[in-house]
């Protein structure tokens, strides 16, 4: 039945599906994992770095992009679609700043991106954008925000979420380990993001990229060394926890 209703985006199937949008969500699952966490005083974005070919310049393969000084996003899915969406969002951020003399709120730019995506699910001859995005930042009122958009053009606020390959596993990990104590401490929130990624990343710390935004501070990208440090700490903590467990069982 699906084959008759997935040719043109503007066609609903008899049972109400928009198959092209659902297929676009499959394209998102082909991208590597990205995780976002909203702490009390910090927002964290962690991504699984795509392996770069030997002759490829690493700088041009980025999953975390700044949209403005106080907002950044990570995406999963089609690289080219992401580039187009990010460019439009960046232009919108500056246009808003010049027109209204205020930087965009995280919700505003998320709504802009989501509206753009929705337009492409209702246009003839166009396909939806094959990306999901995690948008984080601090508003002027100092409140941290995390939003997620998907190819259908919906957006929701989240405390923590994951997109891309194995997003379900990461989300389940976050559901188990996201507590108010953890996110109150900046360092713990960062560790939670790394631990969530380590559940699904194929070769440990060297394939993880991390970015944080603290209140009234610009975006900070972690260097490979800093990530390695965090990963070592996490592994030490894990070993200690296992030792305690084995002592208890004895």
């Amino acid at each position, binding site marked *: 039945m699906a084959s008759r209703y997935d040719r043109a985006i503007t066609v609903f199937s008899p049972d109400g599906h928009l198959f092209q949008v659902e297929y676009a*969500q499959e394209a998102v*699952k082909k991208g590597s994992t990205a995780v976002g966490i909203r702490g009390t005083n910090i927002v964290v974005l962690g991504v699984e770095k*795509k392996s770069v070919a030997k002759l490829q310049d690493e700088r041009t393969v980025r999953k975390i992009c700044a949209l403005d000084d106080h907002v950044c996003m990570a995406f999963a899915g089609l690289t080219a679609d992401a580039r187009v969406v990010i460019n439009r969002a960046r232009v919108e951020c500056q246009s808003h700043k010049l027109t209204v003399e205020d930087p965009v709120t995280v919700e505003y730019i998320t709504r802009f991106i989501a509206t753009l995506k929705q337009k492409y699910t209702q246009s003839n001859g166009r396909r939806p954008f094959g990306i999901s995005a995690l948008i984080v930042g601090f508003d002027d009122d100092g409140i941290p925000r995390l939003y997620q958009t998907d190819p259908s053009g919906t957006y929701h606020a989240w405390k923590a979420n994951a997109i891309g390959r194995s997003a379900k596993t990461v989300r389940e990990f976050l559901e188990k380990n996201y507590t108010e104590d953890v996110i109150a401490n900046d360092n713990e929130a960062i560790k939670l993001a790394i631990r969530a990624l380590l559940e699904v990343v194929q070769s440990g710390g060297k394939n993880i990229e991390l970015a944080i935004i603290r209140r009234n501070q610009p975006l900070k990208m972690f260097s490979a060394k800093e990530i390695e440090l965090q990963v070592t700490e996490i592994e030490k903590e894990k070993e200690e926890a296992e030792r305690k467990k084995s002592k208890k069982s004895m």
Partner: protein
Amino acid sequence: MAATFFGEVVKAPCRAGTEDEDEEEEGRRETPEDREVRRQLARKREVRLLRRQTKTSLEVSLLEKYPCSKFIIAIGNNAVAFLSSFVMNSGVWEEVGCAKLWNEWCRTTDAIHLSPAEAFCVFYHLKSNPSVFLCQCSCYVAEDQQYQWLEKVFGSCPRKNMQITILTSRHVTDYKTSESTGSLPSPFLKALKTQNFKDPVCCSLLEQPNIVHDLPAAVLSYCQVWKIPAVLYLCYTDVMKLDLITVEAFKPILSSRTLKGLVKNIPQSTEILKKLMTTNEIQSNIYT
């Protein structure tokens, strides 16, 4: 027969069948050229089972030549990677032979001179227990070749005192369920077994109306007909290429009776699997 406006006589289609059947037969008789083309095509698509050392064809089927108590068949790249990392590194396996075949899905165009690196189905047996067999099949066996493959491997009258385990994977969009595919915990494992398979299975059984396709279905049907105990473990995944998480989804099978004795070093296996992933990664910039 009917006459058109222009005076030509046109044969009117008739659903009752043709009246002049003899005339039809003459027109459809096979020319020597047709026969030759058909013969060449059959030869091109022949499934050949070759011995390891001599690379000559086996005269009898593989399991008629060698006695077998356990046969584990991996079909598809994820199942093959699972057996390579978890089973094959836990013992000394010796290559017994290979099956070479060509069809439209093959990357090479030369059917006769397939290089040794392209042996698509390789058969091994455990040196310490030569009745345990393993098959790594990473090619697609077309419908017309499946019967030949079965004959060359199992023979026309197989023994019943062996147990077959088949591992394969399929895309989760083929899984028919009333739930939405977004809520499925892919990758996940499903099992299908023959009537004579009495051991417990390591996961839930495949529900209707889902069916199994291609070579795994052919092997399972063959075992059901010949009353051989066989079980198929099918992993539904959303990543069809070689993927660590899909391969690890096969892990519950390690506790089954068939594989329990064969697997020894699991942490080392995970390391080998990771290495296999990195060497096989194809560079693609479409998805980030």
